[in-house]
């Protein structure tokens, strides 16, 4: 016979348990981006080729499940005798921002909220003070007389402050000079974002949103594979392209040829020619001692 006390007890127990279950329900959504395999995955540098193959397979399946497109995910290693350097011709840049959007399209950045690796600063003539730069300009026509344009992105420092502060070694500098992030290892503490003097790192505050028809299926593990909520990302010199021998996306789309990229260890490369013969204005914020692999130069 169910008396009043037992009825109340069992009701309370039932309600309490269901409330507990319900409060855990957000964990169901976690399955979208953290599988057990990913949770138990080893550190990037400790993965054997076989394990890497499995990881790439997992990413391929995850992307296919989410976007309905089967991507081509690779883990490209740095080439021997290659060190990448970027140079940007401030005389030529017209501030059209095509590089910004080519980068977003190539690297599968979130479209909403918008994540962009490149900021184009509109700067008044006669000053090199980045504080005077404006990246929200909305002119009808560019270039605006009296101004020059300075695109800023990850400078791929030789002495990167962001790597030093990472508490879990989720970001490091590779042999070819690219500072990379393992999105599966990042804990999202954003120390690197604070350490970077160039505002080059971006944080995924929410789950990134990429329209299916705009997903770039050519992916790399350390490059443009889709990120999840709560991890950092930044420019990686289009690792999926440049380690396959191609030019970065921002360079190819530049309508005026202001962007130059290449192997600085090859004396025949255009980048060596530029560093040898051109008037190099700066490595941005040189005084920070970061020694960027990104050079700004003038033609005349």
């Amino acid at each position, binding site marked *: 016979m169910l008396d009043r006390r037992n009825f109340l007890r069992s009701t*309370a127990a039932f309600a309490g348990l269901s409330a507990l279950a319900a409060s855990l329900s957000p964990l169901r959504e976690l399955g979208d981006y953290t599988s057990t395999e990913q949770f138990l995955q080893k550190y990037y540098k400790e993965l054997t080729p076989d394990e890497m193959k499995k990881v790439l397979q997992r990413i391929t399946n995850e992307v296919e499940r989410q976007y309905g497109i089967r991507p081509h995910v690779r883990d490209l290693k740095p080439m021997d005798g290659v060190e990448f350097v970027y140079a940007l011709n401030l005389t030529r840049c*017209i501030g059209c921002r095509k590089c910004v*959007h080519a980068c977003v399209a190539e690297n599968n950045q979130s479209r909403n909220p918008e994540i962009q690796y490149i900021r184009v600063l509109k700067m008044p003539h006669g000053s090199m003070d980045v504080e005077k730069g404006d990246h929200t300009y909305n002119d009808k026509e560019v*270039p605006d007389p009296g101004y020059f344009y300075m695109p800023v992105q990850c400078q791929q420092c030789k002495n990167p402050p962001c790597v030093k502060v990472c508490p879990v070694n989720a970001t490091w500098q590779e042999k070819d000079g690219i500072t990379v992030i393992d999105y599966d290892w990042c804990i999202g503490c954003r120390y690197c974002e604070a350490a970077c003097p160039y505002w080059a790192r971006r944080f995924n505050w929410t789950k990134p*949103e990429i329209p299916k028809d*705009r997903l770039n299926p050519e992916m790399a593990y350390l490059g443009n594979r889709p990120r999840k909520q709560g991890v950092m990302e930044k420019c990686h010199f289009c690792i999926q392209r440049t380690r396959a021998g*191609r030019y970065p996306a921002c360079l190819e789309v530049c309508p005026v040829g202001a962007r*130059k990229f290449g192997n600085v260890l090859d004396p025949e490369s255009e980048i060596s020619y530029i560093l040898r013969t051109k008037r190099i204005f700066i490595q941005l914020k040189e005084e920070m001692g970061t020694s960027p692999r990104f050079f700004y130069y003038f033609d005349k």
Partner: protein
Amino acid sequence: MEPTPSASAAVSSKRTNYCLGALTLGFIGLAVAFLGNLWGHPPARQQIPPVDKAFLEKTPWRKTYADLVRGKEDLSDFDCYGCHDKKKPPPLRFDAHSTLIVPEEHKDIVMGHGSHNRNNLCYNCHNESNLETFQVRDGRELKFADSTQLCGSCHGPNYRDWEAGAHGRINGYWNTSLGEARKLDCANCHNPHAPRIPTRDPAPGPHALRTPVMRYQAETTP
């Protein structure tokens, strides 16, 4: 009058039951709220229109004669002797300020090569005696497809930079052992008759970074 122990036990068990009942109702309410996801919905995100695909275009905005030949496209514009007479070169006419008058038939050409009129003369580059070729200042004749060398005959430093890859656009592979690098010609980016790169509409600026303060600044600064 003091309550008897049994009466006080009855009161306390009543209180316990009320507490348990209230707790039960609270739990049920919470369970309903959690299951129904009544809160925790973030406000709907502001829609950001996708960027126009024209801004992602990598092909150069102009086609050179060599591109037209490669693409097997219409070359009738380059058939000079369809209209001109082979024996007598068309004369140049000038207005009162000795500015070249572009003839009606070539109205699509806007002359704007350099800052003074000395550069805006047809026969600086086109060959008077054979209109379907160029002439270099040193007397050499060049085919239409070799226009870059013609530009280089005056613009030495830029031509040297272009040859080294430092001026102009290159698409494809930086590592030529893995693929082809395609170096664009002068006329892919510059209109030879008015070589200055025209101004253009910039692609949209950053949404997320456009904070209210920045929007205010943008709206209030002239």
